[in-house]
């Protein structure tokens, strides 16, 4: 089973991916590590930040690892490089 999610890129991840956002078809059940690998496969330049990045799923942080995420069509996933607000 797969679903269509909106993937958002910010700051350095947007510069590396060359895009601000895109719709991707992804499995409904996926670990955050698999999710990251699918995104990085589409945008190989993202691999330069692989040790510094986290994801956000439905606007909540998800660190990259083996926890399973359940995605639904319409969900928002974001690639979050190290932050520098303030």
């Amino acid at each position, binding site marked *: 089973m797969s679903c269509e999610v909106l993937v958002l890129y910010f700051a350095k991840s947007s510069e590396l991916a060359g895009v601000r956002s895109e719709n991707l078809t992804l499995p409904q059940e996926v670990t955050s590590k698999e999710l990251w690998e699918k995104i990085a496969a589409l945008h190989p330049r993202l691999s330069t930040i692989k040790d510094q990045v986290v994801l956000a799923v439905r606007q909540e942080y998800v660190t990259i690892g083996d926890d399973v995420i359940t995605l639904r069509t319409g969900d928002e996933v974001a690639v979050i490089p190290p932050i520098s*607000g303030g």
Partner: protein
Amino acid sequence: MDEGDGEPQDFIRICTEKLSTEEVSQLVVSPSCGAVSIFVGTTRNNFEGKKVVHLEYDAYVPMAEAEIKKILADIRKRWPSVKHMAVYHRLGLVPTTEASVVIAISSPHRDDSLDAVKFCINTLKATVPIWKKEVYEEEGSTWKENKECFWKKQ
């Protein structure tokens, strides 16, 4: 103890307009409070000897607002006497010396708002998805990384 200033309020704004310290501090003034503590983050003109001409801020706006809300809820648990809180963050191009963030918190006694402001800016730097790019006079630009960023390898 509250005379005519109603329920505690939170004000969160992420915008591209120039920030006014006066405006943000006025939001939190309360007749029952003797203290307003404020932190203003301003953009510096140099980094490791390189002259910064301006800074550019990007944000995941709805998530940034949600993360700021979490910080403010946490402050209300830690410092229950805190009255009003305002967190304004600027996006887009910010010239050096102008404010990128203004945090203002009121409380009946000063220790609570002073400590809460410090906690607020420290936590904001660790958890709120906002990014700053320094653009240098000589060449190039760098996306900065807060040392407080919670997932950054130390």
